[in-house]
């Protein structure tokens, strides 16, 4: 509560801002709190939705967020990042997503499907992709894990654009409230947008306009399929920071590049309805999700990525040795900088200020560590964004919106520590909060028991009772 009292505004003022409805062109959300896209490997291997995901999404709807953005949803199996993620590659997936929509809507919560394609950032492609190189804008191997890539032909580009369009159509068919294009964090759309990655010499590479062509074609194809009255938003990097790991890599897109892209995607009012601002041209990235990196967990769970890339063993050797591990952690924290909560707000403000001059009906969401009412209200008030999206703080406290209505944030012990253990455990274990210190209990064993109970709650209630 100290934070609220120090601030200029009372908590009641902050809560009023946060819990005021947000009106998009084609969508109204009851408050300014969005659950950002995240998921565990909860579904069937072949991309059919699983029972656990229904429970998963319902947790957050029940917790009070105004809108849920689905976890990364592949528009094709070739574009999955991890196995056991529900996909939207076929009409046979529509019934599952309809059920998701229903569950969420019961809590007056909206649901956006995040249409995604991994491109070369395919952490676990699964057996379906085992003998294929990942599609990308480039032939260059991903510099982090060393995932092999092949530059898409124009025919392949058209095919993928169509997959996005059909994904959007299916989302609408399933009764969902809109779609979001995952154009941030290093996935396929970023691989086209980013000057640090896209090395094409054709119409899809070179100038920022050319690099944005792929995304614009997707937007137009989606509009063709779903019309103009269906919510369409774009998640995009404010700045790429593509040189975070290897300083000799190109930096990627600047804020000005991003602004140009955003303007193009408005497509004279026929394009996107809102932008969702993140940063970092890879996932993970020191700026996304912003926080710490647990070397112990990295070493424990990273091995699952071994078959995926040509640098995974090298990385593991770095992570697991007594000098390389701490050095990597230092780099991770150094590259992030001091700010965690609201790390992307300044980018969002710059973009929003410029875009609403052109079209005031376009809204902005901002992601990055939000979990305190004063910070959230502040970024909305100062015009950085119209709403915020949250992921890890909601994993830590599924009912964070209810907490924020009454208080500035969770009590200290229950706060999300931004440890990113959830991120690393997701490679092998059910997604959940793995920060032991947050849990109740007097001993480690008791705390661990509480942790397991909480993490496994996603499987409750079971499918067959």
């Amino acid at each position, binding site marked *: 509560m100290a934070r609220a009292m120090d601030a200029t505004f009372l908590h009641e003022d902050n809560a009023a801002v946060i819990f005021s409805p947000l009106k998009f062109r084609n969508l109204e959300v009851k408050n300014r709190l969005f659950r950002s896209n995240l998921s565990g490997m909860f579904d069937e291997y072949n991309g059919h939705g699983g029972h656990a995901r229904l429970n998963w999404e319902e947790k957050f709807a029940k917790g009070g967020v105004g809108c849920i953005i689905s976890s990364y949803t592949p528009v094709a199996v070739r574009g999955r990042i991890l196995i056991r993620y529900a996909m939207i590659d076929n009409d046979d997936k529509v019934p599952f997503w309809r059920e998701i929509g229903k569950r969420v809507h019961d809590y007056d919560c909206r649901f956006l499907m995040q249409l995604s394609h991994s491109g070369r950032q395919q952490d676990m492609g699964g057996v379906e992709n*085992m*003998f*294929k*190189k990942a599609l990308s804008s480039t032939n260059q191997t991903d510099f982090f894990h*060393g*995932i*092999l890539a092949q530059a898409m032909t124009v025919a392949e580009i058209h095919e993928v654009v169509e997959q996005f369009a059909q994904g959007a159509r299916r989302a609408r068919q399933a009764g969902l409230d809109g779609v979001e294009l995952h154009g941030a964090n290093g996935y396929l759309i970023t691989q086209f947008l980013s000057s640090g990655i896209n090395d094409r010499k054709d119409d899809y590479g070179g100038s920022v306009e050319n690099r944005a062509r792929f995304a614009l074609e997707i937007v137009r194809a989606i509009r063709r399929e779903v019309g103009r009255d269906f919510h369409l938003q774009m998640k995009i990097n404010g700045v790429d920071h593509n040189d975070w790991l290897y300083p000799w890599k190109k930096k990627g897109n600047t804020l000005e590049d991003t602004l140009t892209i955003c303007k193009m995607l408005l497509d004279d009012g026929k394009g996107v309805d809102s932008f969702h601002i993140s940063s970092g041209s890879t996932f993970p990235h020191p700026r996304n999700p912003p926080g710490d990196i647990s070397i112990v967990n990295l070493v424990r769970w990273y091995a699952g990525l071994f*078959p*995926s*890339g*040509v640098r995974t063993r090298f990385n593991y050797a770095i992570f697991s040795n007594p000098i390389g591990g701490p050095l990597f952690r230092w780099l991770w924290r150094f590259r992030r900088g001091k700010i965690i909560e609201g790390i992307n707000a300044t980018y969002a403000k710059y973009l929003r200020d410029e875009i609403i001059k052109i079209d005031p009906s376009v809204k902005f969401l901002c992601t990055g560590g939000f979990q305190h009412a004063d910070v959230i209200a502040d970024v909305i008030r100062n015009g950085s964004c119209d709403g915020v999206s949250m992921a890890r703080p909601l994993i830590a406290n599924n009912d964070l919106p209810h907490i924020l209505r009454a208080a500035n944030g969770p009590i200290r012990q229950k706060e999300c520590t931004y440890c990113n253990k959830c991120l690393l455990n997701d490679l092998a274990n059910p997604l959940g909060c793995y920060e032991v210190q947050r849990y109740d209990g007097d001993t480690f064993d008791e705390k661990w028991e509480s942790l397991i109970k909480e993490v496994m709650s996603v499987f409750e209630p079971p499918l067959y009772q």
Partner: protein
Amino acid sequence: MNYNPPTPVERVLGRWRWVRCLVVLLVILVVGYYLIFVNQYVVAYRGNLEQFKYGSIGSEPVNGLPILVFKALAFMYRDELGPGGYRRFGMLYETEQSELPIGMSRRIVDGVERVWLNCAVCHVGTYRINLTDQPKFIYGAPSNNLRLFDLLKFFLQVGADPKFSADNLIAAIDSPAVGGNLNFFDRLIYRYVVFPRVQAALQQLSQRLSFIDRQYDWGPGRVDTFNPYKAIQFNFPMDASHITTAELNGSADFPSIWEQRPRDGMHLHWDGNNTSVDERNLSAALGAGVTPVTVDIAALKRIRDWIWTLPAPPFPVPSAIDTSKLPRGRRLFAEYCAGCHGMKNAAGQYDYDTNRYPRLGQIEPLDQIGTDQDRWASYTQDFSAAQNMLYAGYPWRFTHFSKTGGYASQPLDGIWARSPYLHNGSVPTLRDLLEPAAKRPDKWYRGSDLYDTAKVGYRSDGYGAAKQDLFLYNTSVPGNSNMGHEGKIYGTELSPADKDAIVEYMKTL
């Protein structure tokens, strides 16, 4: 159709696996090469004395013999050397079981353990008071036993001997006496690498040192310091037309190496050709087989630091000192000897003060001292010029060598242990040295370490030594003259009682 194709990642990793293997192999080769062929392995002994006796100063890499070859040679040539092996050359083994004699160090070079000489080979003396005593070692004293001339000749003859063949060498190494137990690969290495290299090196050395056939035997306890040096380090022409008989026969006694600190700045070497102890040490190391490239500076510095303050040994039989003669002896010594040699002060410490004793450590002109000139002649101006080029490019480059006009006077600390006397060891005892040259023994035996406590020096009548250990020293041979250091000012005209008194006093130095 390949039903088990690699994934794209595996294909890339597979491609790199060869690169990785090659890199790893290369690293292993480089590390292995470094560990075997670049890095050398030596034993650093905890105690300075052990280090002095057996520590390497870097003579092995170029001049050393593989230890198995060294031991095998003693076995192969047991008829020539006798059952004692290298003892035949006056090398000192501390025990019957000792693998190596004092003054021989080991160093692993190119993966092979090699042995060669260090300082101690020439600077450990022995003595016995009674016939039945075991020889006592005097560390830092001049060697009275080492027959370097014979040892050198032995190795040179081995190089030329048809009996020295790979088959015989390997058989000798595998003999129970040597116990080499070579395996198949060892035998290949010894047959095709070690043997040819040893033989070639000995033959090359033999060529360089062919002049020693024209030299008179140096005898035990003596060395021709500079002629082999000229030939080995500088390839000086050593044939009869380039070198006179006098220059060719400049053998000298080994010196003692204790109490070096006060000697720094004095003229060192018998002819005083250098005033720096460090340079003299480095130069002497070259004589032991070190080269400017292989010298182990750190090991040498350790020896240098040790001898810097190593005390001179006290007279071994105090009861044999007639103390009644000491006051007189002391007074006479002060009058006749101390000006050039210094003496002990009232506190019983040897006084090396060159302000008090202005001739101490200085050059006595040849016509003044009158001793045999051949050792002086063997050191030439050309040679000193060449020496001053040694170690060029290193901070320890030689700069002090110069040709002098005579012989240097030295402190007489521990003089009892430095028998026989004069630079060429031509006078067996101190008492003999106080006689005019004509009365000094002209033919006498070196090689006995039985000590004459009355005349102060090793016995020269051959008593108490095995026949093969004795060497008849003939003062009429070039370089062996016992002339000089005589006349009124040298005390040779004093009464016998006065001379006895001086000798008694000198026992206490």
